[in-house]
């Protein structure tokens, strides 16, 4: 199937026959079609979400959407515009939810367990560990961690205090966790 400029789209050439067979009820073709869509969606979602840990959830949402919306696809027409719209729709939906939740980020416990309020009397050594590791961070990273965990600010509040954008705060915090993990792993 050719694009507007009559250039052959390799994804279209690969997927269109699978779509046609899948719509005829061929289970094998259906599975192949969903696998191929999944591979395509994974790359798209990774680009749009920056490799977020929830990317695979978004891919699964896209697969479910393709399954539900298949009756709206006309096999006489190209499949890529149809698929691209659904992928874009689901990714945009997910991003909207992420931005809405931005003021209260859910951070995996593993990323913060080393510097949650610990009982220093039972593990003074660990407390010194963490302090030393934090001391090795850049001033910006230290300021972000201090605002978010010591002063218990939300991401939005921290961004206002530090005069940084919300996404800059998140990226800085994420990099700080990575460095801390590496430092603490070395010490261990």
């Amino acid at each position, binding site marked *: 199937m050719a694009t507007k400029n009559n250039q052959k789209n390799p994804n279209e050439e690969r997927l269109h026959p699978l779509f046609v067979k899948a719509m*005829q009820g061929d289970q094998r073709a*259906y599975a192949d079609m969903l696998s191929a869509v999944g591979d395509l969606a994974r790359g798209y979602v990774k680009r749009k979400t920056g490799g977020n840990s929830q990317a695979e959830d978004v891919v699964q949402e896209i697969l479910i959407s393709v399954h539900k919306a298949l009756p709206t696809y*006309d096999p006489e*027409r190209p499949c890529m515009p149809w698929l691209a719209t659904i992928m874009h*729709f689901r990714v945009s939906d997910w991003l909207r939810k992420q931005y809405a939740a931005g003021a209260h980020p859910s951070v995996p416990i593993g990323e913060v367990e080393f510097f949650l309020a610990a009982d220093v009397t039972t593990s003074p050594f660990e407390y010194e560990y963490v302090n030393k590791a934090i001391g090795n961070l850049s001033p910006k990273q230290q300021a972000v961690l201090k605002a978010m965990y010591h002063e218990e600010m939300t991401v939005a509040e921290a961004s206002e205090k530090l005069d940084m954008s919300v996404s800059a705060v998140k990226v800085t915090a994420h990099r700080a966790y990575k460095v801390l993990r590496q430092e603490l792993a070395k010490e261990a």
Partner: protein
Amino acid sequence: MKTEELISELSAQAAPVKTQSYVRSCVEALLVAGFSMVVLSDYYGLRPDFDSKIAEPLFQLELLLNLFFVLSVGLLANASAFPDRAFSPRIKRAVISAFVAYSALILYLTLNVTSDHHDHGIECLYKILIYAAIPVAWMLWKLRRLASTNPAFTGCMASLFALSVGALGVRLIESGMNAHTLIFWHYLPLILLCAIGSIAGKKMFRW
């Protein structure tokens, strides 16, 4: 659940898929709208001056542009529920052209045509809503079974389609033309109701 497991589950449900035709969807919507117009116009009775009015070029133009607007919005409302047709530039251009042409005509009538001293009021709005009831119920039922990738837009267009059917129907049964109150009692409430349709669409056309 792993993606491979999901794929196995979904492909186990594979069966021949009956394609929902876009053309058929549009035709059905227009037939329902036509049915609503015919039945309600018969119930209320055509305006007393219809025979003389229909011979006037300006009135013919008004009805034609109104009908063109209804048709183009109907096409767009249905297209918005098909992922690969949702961004059709041709249909959007048709809607914009229809809207601009119709607005220009209303503006001309407002400035140049002597008022027939018919003051439109809340009764006009009620009649528009009555005309719109069947088309809006149909669009809600039909478009929910499809796949809108912009639920708010679909809600807005579905409302606009039904309400423009209402506005057209009311022009067939109400004589007189006071362009100022027409704008206030017909078109401004329509814009407000479309905004409500957009908000409702966000919930109703989720899938």
